[in-house]
Protein backbone atom coordinates (compact mmCIF):
# COMPACT_ATOMS: atom_id res chain seq x y z
CA UNK A 1 0.00 0.00 0.00
CA UNK A 2 1.68 3.24 -1.07
CA UNK A 3 1.80 5.78 1.74
CA UNK A 4 -0.57 8.74 1.37
CA UNK A 5 1.22 12.05 0.99
CA UNK A 6 -1.91 14.06 1.71
CA UNK A 7 -4.92 13.50 3.93
CA UNK A 8 -8.42 14.92 3.92
CA UNK A 9 -9.18 16.60 7.23
CA UNK A 10 -12.64 17.57 8.48
CA UNK A 11 -12.74 19.25 11.87
CA UNK A 12 -15.33 21.32 13.72
CA UNK A 13 -13.36 24.36 14.90
CA UNK A 14 -15.06 26.76 17.31
CA UNK A 15 -18.42 25.45 16.17
CA UNK A 16 -17.81 25.63 12.41
CA UNK A 17 -16.99 22.67 10.17
CA UNK A 18 -13.70 23.21 8.33
CA UNK A 19 -12.31 20.89 5.66
CA UNK A 20 -8.99 20.80 3.85
CA UNK A 21 -6.57 18.46 2.17
CA UNK A 22 -3.17 18.78 3.80
CA UNK A 23 0.18 16.97 3.83
CA UNK A 24 -0.15 13.96 6.16
CA UNK A 25 2.72 15.31 8.29
CA UNK A 26 0.81 18.52 9.13
CA UNK A 27 0.62 19.19 12.86
CA UNK A 28 -2.69 20.42 14.26
CA UNK A 29 -1.08 23.70 15.37
CA UNK A 30 0.08 24.43 11.83
CA UNK A 31 -3.29 23.43 10.40
CA UNK A 32 -4.98 25.92 12.74
CA UNK A 33 -2.49 28.72 12.17
CA UNK A 34 -1.53 28.37 8.51
CA UNK A 35 -4.60 26.78 6.88
CA UNK A 36 -7.38 28.23 9.02
CA UNK A 37 -5.62 31.52 9.90
CA UNK A 38 -6.42 31.07 13.59
CA UNK A 39 -3.16 32.50 14.86
CA UNK A 40 -4.14 32.86 18.53
CA UNK A 41 -2.66 29.39 19.13
CA UNK A 42 1.13 29.77 19.33
CA UNK A 43 4.17 27.61 18.62
CA UNK A 44 6.57 28.14 21.51
CA UNK A 45 9.02 25.30 21.97
CA UNK A 46 7.85 22.65 19.50
CA UNK A 47 9.12 20.07 22.00
CA UNK A 48 5.84 19.51 23.87
CA UNK A 49 7.03 21.39 26.97
CA UNK A 50 5.79 25.01 26.93
CA UNK A 51 2.05 24.62 26.30
CA UNK A 52 1.65 27.80 24.20
CA UNK A 53 -0.07 25.59 21.62
CA UNK A 54 -2.78 24.32 23.98
CA UNK A 55 -6.26 23.90 22.48
CA UNK A 56 -9.27 21.80 23.50
CA UNK A 57 -9.85 18.58 21.52
CA UNK A 58 -13.33 17.16 22.19
CA UNK A 59 -13.41 19.46 25.20
CA UNK A 60 -10.09 18.31 26.71
CA UNK A 61 -6.92 20.44 26.68
CA UNK A 62 -4.11 19.02 24.53
CA UNK A 63 -0.87 20.36 23.03
CA UNK A 64 -1.67 20.94 19.38
CA UNK A 65 2.02 20.78 18.40
CA UNK A 66 1.93 17.11 19.39
CA UNK A 67 -1.21 16.07 17.54
CA UNK A 68 -1.39 15.53 13.77
CA UNK A 69 -4.19 17.31 11.91
CA UNK A 70 -5.13 13.85 10.61
CA UNK A 71 -5.68 12.67 14.19
CA UNK A 72 -8.06 15.58 14.81
CA UNK A 73 -10.19 14.81 11.76
CA UNK A 74 -13.71 13.86 12.81
CA UNK A 75 -13.33 15.66 16.14
CA UNK A 76 -14.08 19.09 17.66
CA UNK A 77 -11.50 21.76 18.42
CA UNK A 78 -11.86 24.87 20.55
CA UNK A 79 -9.13 27.49 20.19
CA UNK A 80 -8.64 30.72 22.13
CA UNK A 81 -10.60 32.48 19.41
CA UNK A 82 -13.59 30.35 20.32
CA UNK A 83 -13.84 31.65 23.87
CA UNK A 84 -15.09 35.18 23.57
CA UNK A 85 -18.72 35.70 22.74
CA UNK A 86 -20.01 37.11 19.46
CA UNK A 87 -20.77 40.25 21.42
CA UNK A 88 -17.07 40.58 22.23
CA UNK A 89 -17.59 39.80 25.93
CA UNK A 90 -14.66 37.92 27.40
CA UNK A 91 -14.88 34.40 28.81
CA UNK A 92 -14.57 34.50 32.66
CA UNK A 93 -11.03 33.12 32.55
CA UNK A 94 -10.00 35.75 30.00
CA UNK A 95 -11.55 38.49 32.13
CA UNK A 96 -9.75 37.21 35.23
CA UNK A 97 -6.43 37.27 33.33
CA UNK A 98 -7.14 40.89 32.43
CA UNK A 99 -8.22 41.86 35.96
CA UNK A 100 -5.23 40.19 37.61
CA UNK A 101 -2.61 41.37 35.07
CA UNK A 102 -1.76 37.75 34.34
CA UNK A 103 0.05 38.49 31.10
CA UNK A 104 2.96 40.67 29.94
CA UNK A 105 4.13 39.73 26.47
CA UNK A 106 1.06 37.53 26.02
CA UNK A 107 2.84 34.70 24.19
CA UNK A 108 2.00 31.98 26.70
CA UNK A 109 -1.43 33.44 27.44
CA UNK A 110 -3.73 31.60 25.02
CA UNK A 111 -2.26 28.30 26.18
CA UNK A 112 -2.48 29.33 29.84
CA UNK A 113 -6.15 30.32 29.43
CA UNK A 114 -6.98 26.99 27.77
CA UNK A 115 -5.14 25.11 30.54
CA UNK A 116 -6.94 27.07 33.29
CA UNK A 117 -10.26 26.27 31.63
CA UNK A 118 -9.36 22.57 31.77
CA UNK A 119 -8.39 22.85 35.44
CA UNK A 120 -11.69 24.51 36.39
CA UNK A 121 -13.66 21.95 34.40
CA UNK A 122 -11.97 19.15 36.36
CA UNK A 123 -11.70 20.93 39.72
CA UNK A 124 -13.99 23.97 40.21
CA UNK A 125 -12.51 24.84 43.63
CA UNK A 126 -8.75 24.40 43.37
CA UNK A 127 -6.15 25.33 45.94
CA UNK A 128 -3.12 27.46 45.05
CA UNK A 129 -1.05 24.25 44.99
CA UNK A 130 -3.53 22.53 42.68
CA UNK A 131 -3.53 25.47 40.26
CA UNK A 132 0.27 25.39 40.02
CA UNK A 133 0.25 21.62 39.52
CA UNK A 134 -2.43 21.88 36.82
CA UNK A 135 -0.32 24.45 34.96
CA UNK A 136 2.83 22.30 35.01
CA UNK A 137 2.47 21.88 31.24
CA UNK A 138 2.60 25.63 30.58
CA UNK A 139 5.74 27.75 30.81
CA UNK A 140 5.79 31.56 31.18
CA UNK A 141 8.94 33.60 30.75
CA UNK A 142 7.60 36.98 31.89
CA UNK A 143 5.31 36.88 34.88
CA UNK A 144 6.74 34.48 37.44
CA UNK A 145 3.28 32.81 37.47
CA UNK A 146 1.95 34.68 40.56
CA UNK A 147 -0.70 36.66 38.69
CA UNK A 148 -1.61 33.70 36.51
CA UNK A 149 -2.38 31.71 39.67
CA UNK A 150 -4.34 34.66 41.06
CA UNK A 151 -6.34 34.85 37.83
CA UNK A 152 -7.14 31.14 37.96
CA UNK A 153 -8.34 31.42 41.56
CA UNK A 154 -10.38 34.50 40.70
CA UNK A 155 -12.00 32.78 37.72
CA UNK A 156 -12.83 29.85 40.00
CA UNK A 157 -14.50 32.16 42.53
CA UNK A 158 -16.44 34.04 39.87
CA UNK A 159 -17.61 30.85 38.19
CA UNK A 160 -18.92 29.15 41.32
Amino acid at each position, binding site marked *: *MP*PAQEVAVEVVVNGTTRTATVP*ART*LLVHFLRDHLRLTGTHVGC*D*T*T*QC*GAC*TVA*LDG*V*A*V*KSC*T*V*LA*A*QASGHEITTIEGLSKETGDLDPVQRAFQDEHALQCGYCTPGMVM*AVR*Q*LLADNPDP*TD*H*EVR*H*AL*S*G*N*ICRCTGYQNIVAAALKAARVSR
Partner: protein
Amino acid sequence: MPHALDLLAEARAAGDEAKFLAGGQSLLPMMKLRLAAPQVLIDLAGLDDLKGVRRDGDGGFSIGALTTYRELQRAGAVAGAVPALADALALLADPQVRARGTVGGAVAHGDPAADLPPVLLALDAELTIASPAGTRTALLDDFLQGVFTTDLAEDEIVTAITIRAGGARGSAYAKFPHPASHLPLAGVAAVVTMEDGRVARAEVAVTGISSRPYRARDSERAVTSRAPAPDLLSEPVLSEAVALVADGITPLSDQHASGPYRVHLAQVLARRAISSAIKRAQTGLDASGLDARGRDTRGLNTRGRDTHRAERP
Protein backbone atom coordinates in the same frame (compact mmCIF):
# COMPACT_ATOMS: atom_id res chain seq x y z
CA MET B 1 -14.23 1.24 12.59
CA PRO B 2 -10.94 -0.43 11.77
CA HIS B 3 -10.26 -3.93 12.95
CA ALA B 4 -6.99 -4.48 14.78
CA LEU B 5 -6.01 -7.41 12.58
CA ASP B 6 -6.43 -5.33 9.41
CA LEU B 7 -4.10 -2.70 10.84
CA LEU B 8 -1.61 -5.39 11.84
CA ALA B 9 -1.66 -6.84 8.32
CA GLU B 10 -1.09 -3.35 6.91
CA ALA B 11 1.90 -2.97 9.22
CA ARG B 12 3.40 -6.27 8.04
CA ALA B 13 2.93 -5.20 4.41
CA ALA B 14 4.50 -1.82 5.02
CA GLY B 15 7.50 -3.37 6.75
CA ASP B 16 10.20 -1.18 8.27
CA GLU B 17 8.56 1.98 7.09
CA ALA B 18 5.57 1.77 9.42
CA LYS B 19 5.04 2.56 13.08
CA PHE B 20 1.87 2.41 15.09
CA LEU B 21 0.56 5.71 16.43
CA ALA B 22 -1.26 5.66 19.76
CA GLY B 23 -1.20 8.93 21.74
CA GLY B 24 1.87 10.16 19.89
CA GLN B 25 3.21 12.04 22.92
CA SER B 26 6.57 10.27 22.65
CA LEU B 27 6.64 9.27 18.97
CA LEU B 28 5.73 12.67 17.47
CA PRO B 29 8.38 14.55 19.52
CA MET B 30 10.96 11.98 18.41
CA MET B 31 9.91 12.44 14.79
CA LYS B 32 10.24 16.22 15.11
CA LEU B 33 13.83 15.69 16.24
CA ARG B 34 14.37 13.17 13.41
CA LEU B 35 15.22 10.49 15.99
CA ALA B 36 12.49 8.42 14.32
CA ALA B 37 11.46 8.81 10.68
CA PRO B 38 8.78 6.28 9.74
CA GLN B 39 7.27 6.78 6.30
CA VAL B 40 3.91 5.41 7.42
CA LEU B 41 1.99 5.93 10.65
CA ILE B 42 -0.86 3.55 11.42
CA ASP B 43 -3.33 5.27 13.73
CA LEU B 44 -4.67 2.96 16.45
CA ALA B 45 -7.20 5.52 17.69
CA GLY B 46 -10.29 3.78 16.33
CA LEU B 47 -9.74 0.57 18.32
CA ASP B 48 -12.29 1.30 21.05
CA ASP B 49 -12.16 -2.21 22.49
CA LEU B 50 -8.58 -1.52 23.59
CA LYS B 51 -9.76 1.25 25.91
CA GLY B 52 -10.89 1.02 29.49
CA VAL B 53 -10.08 -0.73 32.75
CA ARG B 54 -11.67 -3.99 33.88
CA ARG B 55 -11.33 -5.99 37.02
CA ASP B 56 -10.06 -9.44 36.17
CA GLY B 57 -10.99 -12.74 37.84
CA ASP B 58 -8.40 -12.51 40.62
CA GLY B 59 -9.42 -8.98 41.63
CA GLY B 60 -6.53 -7.49 39.67
CA PHE B 61 -6.99 -5.05 36.83
CA SER B 62 -6.74 -5.36 33.07
CA ILE B 63 -5.95 -1.99 31.52
CA GLY B 64 -6.69 -1.56 27.81
CA ALA B 65 -3.55 -0.42 25.99
CA LEU B 66 -5.25 2.61 24.46
CA THR B 67 -6.43 3.91 27.83
CA THR B 68 -4.99 7.40 28.26
CA TYR B 69 -3.21 8.43 31.45
CA ARG B 70 -6.06 10.88 32.07
CA GLU B 71 -8.66 8.11 31.76
CA LEU B 72 -6.65 5.90 34.11
CA GLN B 73 -6.36 8.73 36.64
CA ARG B 74 -10.13 9.14 36.55
CA ALA B 75 -10.75 5.39 36.99
CA GLY B 76 -11.07 5.71 40.75
CA ALA B 77 -10.99 2.01 41.54
CA VAL B 78 -7.48 1.53 40.16
CA ALA B 79 -5.98 4.70 41.59
CA GLY B 80 -7.51 3.90 44.98
CA ALA B 81 -6.30 0.30 44.98
CA VAL B 82 -2.76 1.18 43.91
CA PRO B 83 -1.57 4.51 45.39
CA ALA B 84 1.74 4.18 43.53
CA LEU B 85 -0.23 4.42 40.27
CA ALA B 86 -2.01 7.55 41.51
CA ASP B 87 1.39 9.01 42.57
CA ALA B 88 2.96 8.29 39.17
CA LEU B 89 -0.01 9.56 37.16
CA ALA B 90 -0.11 12.82 39.15
CA LEU B 91 3.60 13.42 38.49
CA LEU B 92 3.79 12.14 34.90
CA ALA B 93 4.33 14.81 32.22
CA ASP B 94 1.47 17.36 32.45
CA PRO B 95 -2.34 17.41 32.06
CA GLN B 96 -2.28 18.04 28.31
CA VAL B 97 0.14 15.18 27.59
CA ARG B 98 -1.80 12.89 29.94
CA ALA B 99 -4.95 13.57 27.90
CA ARG B 100 -3.34 11.92 24.82
CA GLY B 101 -0.59 9.57 26.02
CA THR B 102 -1.58 5.94 26.52
CA VAL B 103 -0.57 3.16 28.90
CA GLY B 104 0.22 0.85 25.97
CA GLY B 105 2.41 3.51 24.45
CA ALA B 106 4.30 3.91 27.72
CA VAL B 107 5.07 0.20 27.67
CA ALA B 108 5.81 -0.23 23.96
CA HIS B 109 8.06 2.82 23.63
CA GLY B 110 10.77 1.43 25.90
CA ASP B 111 11.86 4.81 27.26
CA PRO B 112 14.51 4.24 29.96
CA ALA B 113 13.16 7.30 31.80
CA ALA B 114 9.39 6.91 32.01
CA ASP B 115 7.19 7.01 35.11
CA LEU B 116 4.65 4.26 34.52
CA PRO B 117 6.91 1.27 33.70
CA PRO B 118 8.57 1.05 37.16
CA VAL B 119 5.14 1.07 38.84
CA LEU B 120 3.96 -1.65 36.45
CA LEU B 121 7.16 -3.63 37.07
CA ALA B 122 6.60 -3.44 40.82
CA LEU B 123 3.09 -4.82 40.19
CA ASP B 124 4.47 -7.79 38.17
CA ALA B 125 2.58 -6.50 35.12
CA GLU B 126 1.83 -8.90 32.30
CA LEU B 127 1.22 -7.76 28.72
CA THR B 128 -1.19 -9.17 26.17
CA ILE B 129 0.23 -8.76 22.66
CA ALA B 130 -1.61 -9.31 19.38
CA SER B 131 -0.27 -10.00 15.87
CA PRO B 132 -1.68 -11.47 12.65
CA ALA B 133 -0.37 -14.82 13.96
CA GLY B 134 -2.40 -14.65 17.18
CA THR B 135 -2.05 -13.51 20.78
CA ARG B 136 0.73 -13.99 23.33
CA THR B 137 1.47 -12.82 26.84
CA ALA B 138 4.74 -11.53 28.23
CA LEU B 139 5.97 -10.31 31.59
CA LEU B 140 6.85 -6.63 31.40
CA ASP B 141 10.18 -7.44 33.05
CA ASP B 142 11.08 -9.69 30.10
CA PHE B 143 9.56 -7.32 27.53
CA LEU B 144 11.70 -4.26 28.37
CA GLN B 145 15.17 -4.88 26.97
CA GLY B 146 17.09 -1.63 26.70
CA VAL B 147 17.09 1.96 25.52
CA PHE B 148 13.90 2.26 23.39
CA THR B 149 14.22 -1.48 22.84
CA THR B 150 11.47 -3.96 23.61
CA ASP B 151 10.45 -7.44 22.59
CA LEU B 152 7.68 -6.07 20.36
CA ALA B 153 7.82 -7.18 16.70
CA GLU B 154 6.90 -4.71 13.95
CA ASP B 155 3.54 -6.34 13.29
CA GLU B 156 2.54 -6.63 16.96
CA ILE B 157 0.57 -4.35 19.23
CA VAL B 158 0.16 -4.42 22.99
CA THR B 159 -3.56 -4.79 23.65
CA ALA B 160 -3.75 -4.93 27.47
CA ILE B 161 -1.68 -4.62 30.62
CA THR B 162 -2.71 -6.77 33.58
CA ILE B 163 -1.66 -5.99 37.15
CA ARG B 164 -2.22 -8.25 40.11
CA ALA B 165 -4.22 -7.56 43.19
CA GLY B 166 -2.74 -8.23 46.59
CA GLY B 167 -3.49 -8.50 50.27
CA ALA B 168 -2.69 -5.77 52.76
CA ARG B 169 -0.57 -3.69 50.45
CA GLY B 170 0.93 -0.26 50.44
CA SER B 171 2.62 1.33 47.49
CA ALA B 172 4.27 4.60 46.52
CA TYR B 173 6.17 6.24 43.67
CA ALA B 174 8.73 9.02 44.13
CA LYS B 175 10.59 10.85 41.37
CA PHE B 176 13.07 13.64 40.71
CA PRO B 177 11.82 15.36 37.54
CA HIS B 178 13.62 17.38 34.90
CA PRO B 179 12.04 20.81 35.53
CA ALA B 180 10.87 21.45 31.96
CA SER B 181 10.20 18.05 30.43
CA HIS B 182 9.20 16.40 33.75
CA LEU B 183 10.94 13.21 32.69
CA PRO B 184 12.30 11.35 35.73
CA LEU B 185 16.05 11.79 36.14
CA ALA B 186 15.36 9.08 38.69
CA GLY B 187 12.16 7.44 39.94
CA VAL B 188 11.46 4.61 42.38
CA ALA B 189 8.26 2.60 42.81
CA ALA B 190 7.73 0.43 45.89
CA VAL B 191 4.98 -2.07 46.67
CA VAL B 192 4.94 -3.68 50.10
CA THR B 193 2.65 -6.47 51.37
CA MET B 194 2.34 -6.88 55.12
CA GLU B 195 1.45 -10.04 57.03
CA ASP B 196 1.36 -10.23 60.83
CA GLY B 197 3.28 -7.00 61.06
CA ARG B 198 6.15 -8.20 58.87
CA VAL B 199 6.97 -7.41 55.26
CA ALA B 200 5.74 -10.56 53.49
CA ARG B 201 6.85 -9.35 50.08
CA ALA B 202 8.32 -6.21 48.58
CA GLU B 203 8.78 -5.02 45.03
CA VAL B 204 11.06 -2.09 44.24
CA ALA B 205 11.55 -0.78 40.70
CA VAL B 206 13.75 2.04 39.42
CA THR B 207 13.55 4.22 36.30
CA GLY B 208 15.64 6.96 34.75
CA ILE B 209 19.12 5.90 35.87
CA SER B 210 20.03 3.10 33.48
CA SER B 211 19.26 1.61 30.08
CA ARG B 212 15.83 0.34 31.15
CA PRO B 213 13.51 0.42 34.18
CA TYR B 214 14.43 -2.51 36.43
CA ARG B 215 13.52 -4.36 39.60
CA ALA B 216 15.97 -3.73 42.46
CA ARG B 217 15.82 -7.30 43.76
CA ASP B 218 18.65 -6.91 46.29
CA SER B 219 16.72 -4.04 47.88
CA GLU B 220 13.60 -6.20 47.94
CA ARG B 221 15.43 -9.01 49.73
CA ALA B 222 16.80 -6.55 52.28
CA VAL B 223 13.32 -5.54 53.51
CA THR B 224 11.49 -8.85 53.18
CA SER B 225 10.71 -10.80 56.35
CA ARG B 226 12.00 -7.97 58.47
CA ALA B 227 11.12 -7.54 62.11
CA PRO B 228 7.77 -6.14 63.33
CA ALA B 229 6.56 -2.60 62.84
CA PRO B 230 8.74 -0.36 65.06
CA ASP B 231 11.97 -1.70 63.55
CA LEU B 232 10.90 -1.57 59.93
CA LEU B 233 11.61 2.09 59.47
CA SER B 234 14.77 2.00 61.54
CA GLU B 235 18.08 3.03 60.15
CA PRO B 236 19.76 -0.36 59.57
CA VAL B 237 16.84 -1.99 57.75
CA LEU B 238 15.96 0.77 55.32
CA SER B 239 19.56 1.89 54.85
CA GLU B 240 20.57 -1.57 53.65
CA ALA B 241 17.75 -1.67 51.08
CA VAL B 242 18.49 1.88 49.97
CA ALA B 243 22.21 1.25 49.56
CA LEU B 244 21.49 -1.73 47.27
CA VAL B 245 18.95 -0.01 44.98
CA ALA B 246 21.46 0.65 42.18
CA ASP B 247 23.77 -2.30 42.83
CA GLY B 248 25.16 -3.82 39.68
CA ILE B 249 23.67 -1.08 37.50
CA THR B 250 25.71 1.00 35.06
CA PRO B 251 24.14 4.43 35.55
CA LEU B 252 23.48 6.77 32.62
CA SER B 253 25.47 9.98 32.50
CA ASP B 254 24.38 12.96 30.39
CA GLN B 255 24.03 16.74 30.44
CA HIS B 256 21.13 16.54 32.89
CA ALA B 257 22.81 14.41 35.57
CA SER B 258 25.98 12.40 36.08
CA GLY B 259 25.90 8.68 36.80
CA PRO B 260 26.89 9.02 40.48
CA TYR B 261 24.27 11.76 40.97
CA ARG B 262 21.57 9.55 39.44
CA VAL B 263 22.56 6.77 41.84
CA HIS B 264 22.35 9.24 44.74
CA LEU B 265 18.89 10.37 43.59
CA ALA B 266 17.70 6.76 43.29
CA GLN B 267 18.81 6.10 46.86
CA VAL B 268 17.06 9.18 48.25
CA LEU B 269 13.89 8.29 46.35
CA ALA B 270 14.09 4.63 47.37
CA ARG B 271 14.08 5.65 51.03
CA ARG B 272 11.00 7.82 50.44
CA ALA B 273 9.09 5.31 48.35
CA ILE B 274 9.79 2.25 50.52
CA SER B 275 9.05 4.02 53.80
CA SER B 276 5.86 5.55 52.37
CA ALA B 277 4.73 2.17 51.00
CA ILE B 278 5.29 0.58 54.40
CA LYS B 279 3.41 3.37 56.19
CA ARG B 280 0.52 3.11 53.74
CA ALA B 281 0.39 -0.67 54.20
CA GLN B 282 0.34 -0.29 57.97
CA THR B 283 -2.21 2.48 58.27
CA GLY B 284 -4.17 2.77 55.03
CA LEU B 285 -3.41 6.19 53.53
CA ASP B 286 -1.15 7.99 56.00
CA ALA B 287 -3.43 10.64 57.48
CA SER B 288 -0.65 13.21 57.63
CA GLY B 289 -0.49 13.18 53.84
CA LEU B 290 -4.03 14.49 53.44
CA ASP B 291 -4.97 18.12 52.99
CA ALA B 292 -7.77 19.88 54.84
CA ARG B 293 -10.26 18.49 52.37
CA GLY B 294 -9.01 14.95 52.83
CA ARG B 295 -7.16 14.82 49.53
CA ASP B 296 -3.62 13.52 49.27
CA THR B 297 -1.73 16.40 47.70
CA ARG B 298 1.65 15.27 48.89
CA GLY B 299 3.78 14.52 45.86
CA LEU B 300 6.84 12.49 46.59
CA ASN B 301 9.01 14.35 44.11
CA THR B 302 11.58 16.95 45.04
CA ARG B 303 10.25 20.10 43.38
CA GLY B 304 9.55 23.29 45.26
CA ARG B 305 10.86 23.85 48.73
CA ASP B 306 12.48 20.44 48.98
CA THR B 307 14.68 20.91 45.96
CA HIS B 308 17.62 22.58 47.64
CA ARG B 309 17.45 20.78 50.95
CA ALA B 310 20.32 18.35 51.24
CA GLU B 311 19.06 14.94 52.04
CA ARG B 312 21.12 11.90 52.81
CA PRO B 313 20.20 8.74 50.94
